């Protein structure tokens, strides 16, 4: 008997929550799915083209396909880590979403970001802050959406 009462209460609660969520939805603006997909497609595509170009380049230099693939992965991970360190990756991810998060670059970012968090402004970043890189970073944070051309010149 008591259990049934409890279950009914729970169901009632769930129903109200659903109702409220539906009500809230009409006040919440939807993200621009089309533009987000388009940006993700192009940025993700550019990364893939670059990766394939690199792989072919290494294969021309005499590496076999497996080795070349490994090298490309290392380069992608390293450049994503570097960009995270410079504080550029989050602006890039904000712009292109899944385009940089889904490839291995997203994995690299989610490894390095927490690491930086706990070492924030110790040696390396304190150095960065005072150098010209911080100017670039500042410029980056200011420009919406971030300009890709500059990104590639840095990396």
């Amino acid at each position, binding site marked *: 008997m008591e259990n049934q009462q409890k279950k009914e209460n729970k169901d009632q609660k769930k129903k*109200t929550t659903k109702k409220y969520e539906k009500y809230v939805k009409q006040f919440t603006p939807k993200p621009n799915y089309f533009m987000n997909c388009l940006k993700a497609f192009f940025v993700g595509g550019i990364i893939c083209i670059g990766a394939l170009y690199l792989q072919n380049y290494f294969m021309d230099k005499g590496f076999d396909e497996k080795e070349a693939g490994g090298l490309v992965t290392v380069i992608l991970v390293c450049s994503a880590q570097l960009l995270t360190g410079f504080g550029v990756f989050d602006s890039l991810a904000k712009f292109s979403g899944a385009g940089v998060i889904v490839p291995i670059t997203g994995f690299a970012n989610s490894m390095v970001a927490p690491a930086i968090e706990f070492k924030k402004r110790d040696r390396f970043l304190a150095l960065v802050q005072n150098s010209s890189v911080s100017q670039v970073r500042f410029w980056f944070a200011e420009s919406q959406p971030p300009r890709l051309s500059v990104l590639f010149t840095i990396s």
Partner: protein
Amino acid sequence: MKNKLGKQTIIFPKLPRIVGACSIVGEKEGKGPMAKWFDMILEDDTFGEKTWEKSESKMLKQAILMALQKSGRDKNEIDTVLSGDLLNQLMSSSFMARDLSIPFLGLYGACSTMAESLILGSVLIDGEYASNIMVGSSSHYCTAERQFRMPLEHGNQRPPSAQWTATAAGAMILSANDKGDHAVTEGQVVKEVYVTHATIGKIIDTGIKDSNQMGAAMAPAAVDTIINHLSDTGRKPDYYDIILTGDLGLIGKDIAIDLLDGIQLDVKNVYDDCGAMIFDKKQDTHSGGSGCGCSASVFAGYIYKQMRAGKIKNALLISTGALLSTISPQQGESIPGIAHAVAITTEGK
């Protein structure tokens, strides 16, 4: 209980006075529409410190000391400091109080801390347990992100309902209603600001689990507190020149207006929200500001100054808080919302 009205409201018959207030905000907030009302805008969110936590603590301390200076009181005259923030174990507040050597009570009410500390400070003064009380609260975007969401450098896209934790601190000095230190600006005696009523809110949980939907999670709590305050005091919404919620943001503000409209309480002319005021839409904060510092800095900056100048006579501050912990969302818990209201007037004795 002679000092209680209705179910949730308390009265302060001795009218505790707010004698000094100070607000400090970060760089981004300093570019927002409320910039001219803040007492200090940081050039750099680190405030010259090594970590964000230290920076937040320093900001709070600076705000409290500047408020003290403005009130014309001495540090030795302060009986207790009541303060809170969003961090684990109230890091910013405790470390701020470490150097002050004044009796200290740390409070946690999530983003409702400013109203909570104002209420408790007023109670201490009204009950003659203290003659001067410091109240304050702070929040910092970088510390809150780290604690409640993702590391700062983590790449992701924030949904449109997400709010931006304001880097801000606000502090006020409450004093027993002793006359004799009226300030004069621009040839006019400035108005005195008194705390008259407070409504302690109850937790309302609508079952929202998305921590990017804070406004929607807290709006029903704010609405509940407003309704209870108005029914306990028998006042109409237009009694107040401004009814100000803490950090519902743009979405929460619309929900609150709509919910109040549903029970025939028209607040559109007097109602606003600190989270919706502190940032401009162009600043890309999505649904506006949040955090303890949001209502604290807007109240200590904009509202307090407007009241001193006589532009606002009666104000109702409703700081709203989302009382989630860092582990509760991982355990599938929904977000409990709370809101406390404080009625403030310039028409004292």
